[in-house]
């Protein structure tokens, strides 16, 4: 057995125990959100557009047993709206990211392996889309399309694809230079075989951590669109929409804004932590090889 000595400074800035506590919290929160999103229709929640009788509107959290998170600006259950908003966000996010990953991977890997004309053409298109500020592009798509979740998902997919494509291309360039890819070529493999069997799986694995980070980005973007009123039309609940509804009451009943904001914050941070940890794990795996 060869003992490989990496004579570099240790890369653990935080002690291992402290780091994994944050990761466990992140996993727990994401699990809660995803479960809530998936199970929303069967959970014992009040319907999202029903005004709760017996309770004041804009009720603070923890002041009622039946509505632990209080009520919103016109008296609807905050908890219900938060859960169904989660469903909304997770759905849009997952669809958008999956589409971006698939398109970005295919474009990036093909450009990175085939090079020449394919690379030049896709490069121009990708750079052009990247040059447009993402929020502006989202606003444009949202303004043109039919208001709803589908448009948001499409817009987000368009915004995220170029970054994935560039990442995939960079990884492909690096991987394609490796001797085992040349070996496949020498055996007589077609380009398609090499791309599908040798490159795509490895590149997909390396890009995977960015899916988590992109999810965080997508949630914020989606919330922003809804906050600006360009997302799903009411009465469909959304986190961004809830913040917008609570905005006039910020001075006297700040919880209307804080509760959805805190939810967004926790979700975004959790995805970021998970993505980061995934990336570290991949780096370690790469280093030990």
């Amino acid at each position, binding site marked *: *057995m*060869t*003992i490989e*000595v*990496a*004579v*570099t*400074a*240790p890369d653990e800035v935080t002690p291992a125990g402290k780091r994994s506590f944050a990761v466990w919290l992140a996993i727990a929160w994401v699990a809660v959100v995803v479960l809530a999103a998936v199970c929303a229709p069967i959970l014992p929640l009040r319907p999202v557009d029903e005004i709760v009788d017996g309770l004041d509107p804009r009720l603070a959290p923890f002041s009622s047993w039946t509505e632990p998170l209080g009520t919103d600006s016109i008296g609807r259950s905050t908890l219900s709206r938060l859960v169904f908003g989660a469903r909304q966000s997770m759905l849009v996010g997952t669809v958008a990211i999956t589409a971006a990953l698939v398109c970005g991977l295919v474009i990036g890997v093909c450009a990175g392996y085939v090079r020449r004309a394919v690379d030049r053409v896709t490069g121009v298109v990708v750079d052009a889309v990247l040059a447009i500020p993402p929020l502006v592009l989202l606003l444009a798509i949202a303004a043109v399309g039919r208001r709803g979740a589908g448009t948001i998902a499409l817009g987000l997919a368009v915004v995220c694809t170029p970054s994935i494509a560039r990442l995939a291309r960079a990884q492909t360039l690096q991987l394609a230079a490796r001797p085992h890819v040349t070996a496949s070529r020498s055996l007589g493999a077609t380009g398609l075989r090499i791309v599908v069997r040798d490159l795509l799986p490895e590149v997909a694995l390396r890009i995977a951590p960015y899916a988590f980070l992109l999810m965080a980005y997508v949630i914020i973007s989606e919330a922003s669109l809804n906050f600006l009123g360009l997302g799903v039309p009411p009465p469909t609940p959304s986190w961004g929409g809830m913040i917008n509804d609570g905005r006039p009451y910020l001075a006297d009943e700040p919880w209307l804004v804080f509760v959805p904001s805190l939810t967004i914050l926790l979700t975004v941070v959790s995805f970021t932590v998970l993505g980061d940890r995934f990336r570290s794990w991949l780096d370690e795996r790469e280093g030990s090889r």
Partner: protein
Amino acid sequence: MSLLEVRGLSVRFRAAHAVRGVDLDVGAGECLALVGESGSGKSVTARALLGLLPPTAEIAGRAVFDGIDLQITSGRRSPVVGSRLTTVFQDPMRALNPVLRIGDQITEVLRLHAGMSRAAARVRAEELLAAVGMADPGRRLRAYPHELSGGMRQRVCIAIAIACRPALVLADEPTTALDVTVQRQILDLVDELRRASGMAMVLITHDLAVVAGRADRVAVMRAGEIVESGPTRDVFTAPRHPYTAALLDAVPRIDGPRAAAVVEGSAVEGVR
């Protein structure tokens, strides 16, 4: 008394025991070769003496250089390292700072360790480049590492190593990354410098043939231990340990009988 005396050097990295109980002696002006294959622990030994191991390494043992305790167990670099005990590494491209000119990298050492003024250091730097056989040293001072060939870069690293007239130079695979004709130039240069200044050397390499002509004594390492040591000629003509014999048998010969005896795979695997 030896110039460098190492007793019971031991290095552990979490589970792996990289170096176990190594004893070394290097006399003044002597060249000791430390040979072994990958994983034998020879580079880790060198880095332990230089204080270049990561903080996760557990170091035990004692090393005394010219009467000074190197305090290797602390893991920190001793103050004599860099001036009286210097080193040449394998890859000159990585040992040199790519964004600084050669001249600046040499004068840095002179100003830091020998306390020279900037002007005096520049003069000395030019002398050093001439001493290591660089043509047109004055102009080369202003060159960047990437503008030089591999052999020239290694000459610069040697110049940096001998700048403060060290008593001992530790060379860790100094010619492994170089072409064979350049390797000969560099090794000849090092021999010449040693004759002129009387400095001692620890030459770490996997290439037994390089050791044969250049080292006075040799220590053979395997799996963290020294399995055999002694004067080079004795060890090479009459090795006592089976691993040394196997290693010598496996070296491809440019002279003598052509096909080496076919070494049974399993036999050598077992010895490893």
